[in-house]
């Protein structure tokens, strides 16, 4: 014994769970793909930089090899790392008043540490990039009565890269900015036994 409006009501009543179902599935698919994309991407910064740079050495990025939205006033270099082969040692003697930027990127592009030349003590930087387990080993070997002289940074992923960017204060100084990056040292740490 259905009334007229009951029929319309019934149709909506039957469609409602279907619409709700569609939205729930859409939401799940959307969230899953957004979270999966960084893991599936083949054109991300790590893939692009791996193609042009061997690991554990400073490589200057040629013009146009950087990503989108790079500052054209910055010279860029990188050091790709694979901590499975051991901790990474980074040393720099910095030019006073010349801007140098350091950013540490994990395998999927996320920045886990960044600093500028301002953080240097007496114009020098000494950094050790390692995993939590490697840090335990290093700390076990530390002399007990003195503070470590290097800055120790724990990486969230085994692979990743360090980006060095140096400002050319005017376009004519790009070569000097590149030379400042080329003068950095980056490599597997010789003091640490893997």
């Amino acid at each position, binding site marked *: 014994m259905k009334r007229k409006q009951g029929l319309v009501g019934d149709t909506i009543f039957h469609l409602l769970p*279907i619409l709700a179902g569609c939205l729930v599935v859409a939401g799940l*698919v959307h969230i899953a793909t*957004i979270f999966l994309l960084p893991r599936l991407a083949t054109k991300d910064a790590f893939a692009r930089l791996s193609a042009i740079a061997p690991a554990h050495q400073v490589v200057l990025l040629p013009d146009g090899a950087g990503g989108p939205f790079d500052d*054209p006033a910055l010279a860029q270099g990188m050091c790709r790392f694979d901590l499975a082969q051991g901790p990474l040692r980074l040393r720099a003697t910095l030019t006073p008043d010349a801007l140098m930027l350091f950013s540490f990127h994990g395998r999927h592009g996320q920045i886990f540490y960044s600093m500028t030349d301002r953080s240097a003590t007496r114009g020098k930087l000494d950094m050790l990039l390692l995993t939590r387990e490697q840090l335990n080993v290093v700390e076990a070997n530390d002399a007990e009565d003195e503070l470590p002289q290097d800055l120790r940074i724990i990486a969230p992923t085994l692979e990743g890269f360090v980006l060095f960017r140096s400002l050319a204060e005017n376009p004519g100084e790009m070569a000097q900015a590149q030379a400042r990056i080329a003068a950095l040292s980056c490599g597997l740490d010789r003091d640490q036994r893997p």
Partner: protein
Amino acid sequence: MLHAFKLIVVALIGLGLGLGATYHAVERGQDRGLGVGLIFGAVKAGPWTGWPKTGTRESDPYARALFARNGETPIGLTEGLSFLARADSHARPFDSACDYTVKGAIPAARFWTLSALSPQGRTLPAISERHGFTSSEILRDFDGGFEIKVSASARPGDWLEVAQGQPFVLMLRLYDTALSANPYSVTAGVMPAIAREGCR
């Protein structure tokens, strides 16, 4: 039977909508002129928008997906701050047929740069071979103020060239700035204004 059919329809429509939403956020998000994609953690100050969290461990999943697709490497928050403008101070979208001046206040920073890029973040073709200015090279007036002219045709003074007939965005970067400690405190008053001067 009908039940199974309903489930398949729901799954297919849901899949389509979900993938569509991801495509919209990630692919269209590559065009920074559209204002989609980077939606979380934005700080707005006049015509400028910054996404300080993209340079930290706390970058949001949308930003990560976006950067995984276009290979962008943002600067870390402790290195500095980036701001993007895609419209003038009156919220009129940039047009390369118009002239603009960028002047006024600038937050305290050891260095800053202003550059013009395509909405996809690529350098624009420029006869002047200049894609940006650094704080060290600009002309200053008696009060230390600056005035950068953004135009497709040559202008006296500090001329930042954009390409005729091509869309562009402006990027302002502040390096080694105290603002990094509190990026969400930035207001229009401390940032340069972008005035539209005239159109051809």
